[in-house]
């Protein structure tokens, strides 16, 4: 990390456009992720939050626009350079994505074994340190199928920080958690971010948790950034859309329905897929 760019955003997204078929998931989106901060991306289900993380990780290529990570343009990187960059990014999938045929210990050791030539005892110590950081050192010999959903996510976190990355992306870390493990995850994300000097991106639609850990929040919907700012700024936003989302009202400017044709026409038409 050079001194000169230590205040520049770690990730700069400009004019991002991405289509699935004819549908624009992102339409000319600009977004910054500040270094060392926790940035939360919020939005209704199906707006493309997971898609955004995959675009940042280079698993999907945008139709237009640039994604610049620590000075490198992801969209034009060679495969080799992209893999090099990914070693410095951790990602937590919605499902945890642990390897199901090996133990917790081996899961956390996996990136170390793949990318380093450390001795067996070094790997063991590192794995124990990472597991200790997420409070699961005692679970090291369990198989992933023996973990609860919350524990699996914490193991995935330990794995994501195994190579000491510069940033980590969390896809919906809070869904399906009881209030206690939700609280554990919230404080863990914050703690890891600050203690390891990480930059974190958290995708979520749990308003309370997200506002509790966010330094900066982006609200996206219908392929656009609707609003962004610190949690306080958003709470004071005049936009009815933001108010609806943050207060969880079922209908309002945000439609409840996936885009569809006229309901009555649909009911009256005999065959479904006549175009």
């Amino acid at each position: 990390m050079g001194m000169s760019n230590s205040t520049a955003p770690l990730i700069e997204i400009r004019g991002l456009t991405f289509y699935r078929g004819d549908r624009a998931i992102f339409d000319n989106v600009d977004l910054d992720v500040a270094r060392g901060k926790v940035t939360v991306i919020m939005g209704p289900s199906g707006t493309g939050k997971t898609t955004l993380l995959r675009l940042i990780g280079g698993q999907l290529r945008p139709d237009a626009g640039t994604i610049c990570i620590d000075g490198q343009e992801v969209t034009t990187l060679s495969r080799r350079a992209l893999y090099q960059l990914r070693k410095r990014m951790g990602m937590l999938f919605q499902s945890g994505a642990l390897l199901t045929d090996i133990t917790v210990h081996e899961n956390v050791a996996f990136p170390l074994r793949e990318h380093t030539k450390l001795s067996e005892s070094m790997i063991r110590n590192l794995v124990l340190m990472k597991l200790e950081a997420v409070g699961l050192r005692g679970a090291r010999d369990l198989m992933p199928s023996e973990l609860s959903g919350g524990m699996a996510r914490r193991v995935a976190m330990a794995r994501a920080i195994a190579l000491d990355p510069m940033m980590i992306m969390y896809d919906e870390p809070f869904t399906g958690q009881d209030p206690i493990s939700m609280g554990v995850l919230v404080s863990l994300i914050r703690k890891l971010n600050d203690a390891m000097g990480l930059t974190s991106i958290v995708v979520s639609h749990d308003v309370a948790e997200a506002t509790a850990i966010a330094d900066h929040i982006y609200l996206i919907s219908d392929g656009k950034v609707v609003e962004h700012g610190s949690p306080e700024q958003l709470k004071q936003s005049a936009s009815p859309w933001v108010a609806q989302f943050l207060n969880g009202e079922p209908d309002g400017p945000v439609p409840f329905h996936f885009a569809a044709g006229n309901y009555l026409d649909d009911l009256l038409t005999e065959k479904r897929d006549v175009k």
Partner: protein
Amino acid sequence: MLNKVQQLGRSTISSLERLGRGHLFFLQLLTALPTVLLRFPLLTQQLFSIGVLSFLIIFVSGLFVGMVLGLQGYNTLIDFGAEESLGVMVALSLVRELGPVVTALLFAGRAGSALTAEIGLMKATEQLSGMEMMAVDPIKRIVAPRFWAGVISMPLLAAIFSAIGVIGGYIVGVGLLGIDAGAFWSQMQPRVDLGEDILNGVIKSIVFGVVVSWIAVYEGYDATPTSEGVSRATTRTVVHSALAVLGLDFMLTALMFGE
């Protein structure tokens, strides 16, 4: 009407696309060979679960097929007073045809379907995506070792099948039906040719090994990432492998033995 034409066109294009992707995928598997050899433990692990664990079914099937050949062959040959040639008949049928073909069919059912299901489930549970994000290429780390283990196992299993089958024929012919053991072996020895018969059989089994393993890993890797998608991919592996093996067997036989 126009809709039908459109649909036909669309499905033709998408299946051609799939075929194209399959071939590119095949190239990736071939170029991953050095990586696979460098990470030998990954390969041996797969050789165990694909090859060694298929051994029992191959052993038992080979024995029964050989015994049936012994019985049927004896009944036919005795009409011509040629029952001493039973050994030759059993050995040639096995080495040229039944060894490679039946082994490939069993292999598709035992190992191929398991490969597809395993890789497909890893995809459905985002384990492959997760690996990519950890900067580990899932084709090199997961798919290629399984493919190459299949390619290596298949000819060995076919050889075992044929050898056991000959013993099965011996048990029935010599043990049960009372053919002279000396005639059984001594007629077989000069009439089963190393180049003409055995080598051609080995070539067949290698071709089948490549094709079945390729179909199995590709179906898994390309499966729709849902439980239904994986189950359909598994079925496709078995059906497509069987058709490919039988079709290729005809072509290879025509090329090799069809003057």
